[in-house]
């Protein structure tokens, strides 16, 4: 009875006037534009505002568009490559910042790793543009290496955070127990630390993948001619005309992101126990 009385008298934000209205408006702003975008990807006509009947023609158009195929594959390849490198580096960074005891400058290093979370993306983009241009002039190399490097660096903190979070919840006594049971440091890592890190590593990879797939600014400033990714290609198309083909591509893009985020959720929930 006492517990109930305390709970009832506690401040509750849900009882403020307008709470329900603000909540509904927020969700409408978040999801209604996306719902409309998806809906009109199935429109029979070319209009973005008048429904003319159901059709898959824009999906067909998108699939038949060789440019869309090319930039999609490039985006996927770039995301997988950058997320892989970023995950490896982030794993090493997480081990270095959680498994070696305190060292001077630890907080500093933590902040440095997380640069992309703090520096505005446009600043990073311009900086990269100038930096990459200088290297291009010096070396003449204009391949995908620049994009891979830029995306990797940009994805590291997103991969680092879940891996570090996972490591921080790992009891140091587990590694001590492995050593006590005659495991060499490498065996303790191989049989205990690494398997227990896997959920964090997978989560880190997926976050990195989604971030790389999504970023426009970094790509726009770093890419050379003919290196459009799906987001920069779409941006370019939108400047000319908005056809429901873009809606169809965006919808597919959304579906892929949703699948990855769902997988991320299940992995961290079931394996993270």
């Amino acid at each position, binding site marked *: 009875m006492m517990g109930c009385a305390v709970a009832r008298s506690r401040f509750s934000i849900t009882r403020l006037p307008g709470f329900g209205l603000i909540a509904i408006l927020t969700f409408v702003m978040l999801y209604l534009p996306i719902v409309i975008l998806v809906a009109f990807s199935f429109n029979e006509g070319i209009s973005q505002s008048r429904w003319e009947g159901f059709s898959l023609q824009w999906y067909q158009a998108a699939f038949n568009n060789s440019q869309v195929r090319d930039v999609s594959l490039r985006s996927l390849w770039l995301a997988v490559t950058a997320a892989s490198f970023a995950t490896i580096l982030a794993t090493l960074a997480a081990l270095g910042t959680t498994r070696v005891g305190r060292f001077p400058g630890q907080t500093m290093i933590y902040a440095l790793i997380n640069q992309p979370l703090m520096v505005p993306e446009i600043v990073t983009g311009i900086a990269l543009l100038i930096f990459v241009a200088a290297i291009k002039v010096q070396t003449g190399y204009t391949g995908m290496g620049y994009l891979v490097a830029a995306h990797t660096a940009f994805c590291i903190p997103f991969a680092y955070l879940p891996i570090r979070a996972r490591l921080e919840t790992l*009891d140091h006594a*587990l590694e*001590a*127990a492995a050593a*006590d*049971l*005659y495991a060499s440091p490498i065996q303790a890592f191989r049989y205990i630390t690494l398997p*227990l890190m896997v959920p964090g590593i997978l989560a880190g990879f997926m976050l990195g993948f989604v971030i790389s797939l999504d970023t426009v600014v970094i790509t726009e400033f770093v890419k050379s001619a003919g290196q459009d990714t799906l987001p920069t290609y779409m941006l370019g198309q939108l400047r000319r005309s908005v056809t429901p083909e873009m809606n169809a591509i965006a919808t597919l893009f959304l579906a892929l992101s949703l699948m990855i985020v769902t997988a991320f959720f299940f992995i961290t929930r079931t394996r993270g*126990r």
Partner: protein
Amino acid sequence: MSQEIEITGLNKSFGQGAAAFHALRAIDLTIATGEFFTLLGPSGCGKTTLLRIIAGFEEPSTGVLRINGKDVTGLGPDKRPINTVFQSYALFPHMSVAQNIGFGLKMLGKPKSEIKATVAEMLQLVRMEAMADRLPSEISGGQQQRVALARALAPRPRVLLLDEPLSALDLKLRKEMQSELKRLQTETGITFVFVTHDQEEALTMSDRIAVMSAGEILQLGPPQEIYNAPVNRFVADFIGDTNFLRLRLRVKAVAAGEAVLELPGGKQASARLPASISPPVGSLVTAVIRPEQAEPTPAGQGEMQAVVASATFFGTDTHLHLLLDDAQGFVLRRQNRPDQPSPAPGTKLGLTFAPGALRVLED
């Protein structure tokens, strides 16, 4: 009996210079093969640090540690024939009970058939056969405790270290595990080094106890000796309940190790006087007597007179809180019997005690 663990001149400090914290000071200790040895003390006394040094998780600042005659100072935990049962159990959450138990043998490179046989044997030893394929998260705390024990015993270590392994269990399970531990130790013949802050646990299970405080071993001996003949006030206070009395020393050294004290009310009684201390005659000394070592007598009889202030019921016995003639407090433990109700507050009674129950202590 051969010496399993030999520690000489061991010191451990953390930090440098004036800020250094001395966790262990001048520890000399030998533990015999097959002994159930307990490190007992309050938290922060250095017992866990000593255990971690024996296990190899910490290096001593100075001193030598020998196991079975071999100097292991500087060897890592994976190179010592010692296994540990951790306070948190530290079971590997992604491995089944059987895989946990077999881990040590796997790391030692034993053949699969041998691992399988030993795991089966260990499961039987801790009565967990039915749980072999469960994950640690799928078994109870008491069962996890058994698995942690089996995992540490499986590689047949020379020494098993136990770091407060029973502290997370509830009272009933703890009692069960106490006798279980004692059984396992007797059956396997492995030397057990047990760390606890629970004096009752230490008294019931150990062959010998080292009572520690502030990084030093204050007293080392069998449980009876620690309980009956504590060397100083700290040990007397930490182990069991005890009455501390300020009494005047009347005669010193009647016989070897004996003295006469003046009790409240004026009577004199003989008390044991350790050879290590020598207070002047006529001075006030601290003397101790256990609550169960005094007996009530009718008022006017016995060595001291007292008034009952209050009584606390404990089921098997009652603690009577008494006031002596000179207003010093005294706790008397009296076994409960249905035909003898405990005296009401205000009741006057006398107290008597066996010769030797009273001991003078170093302050």
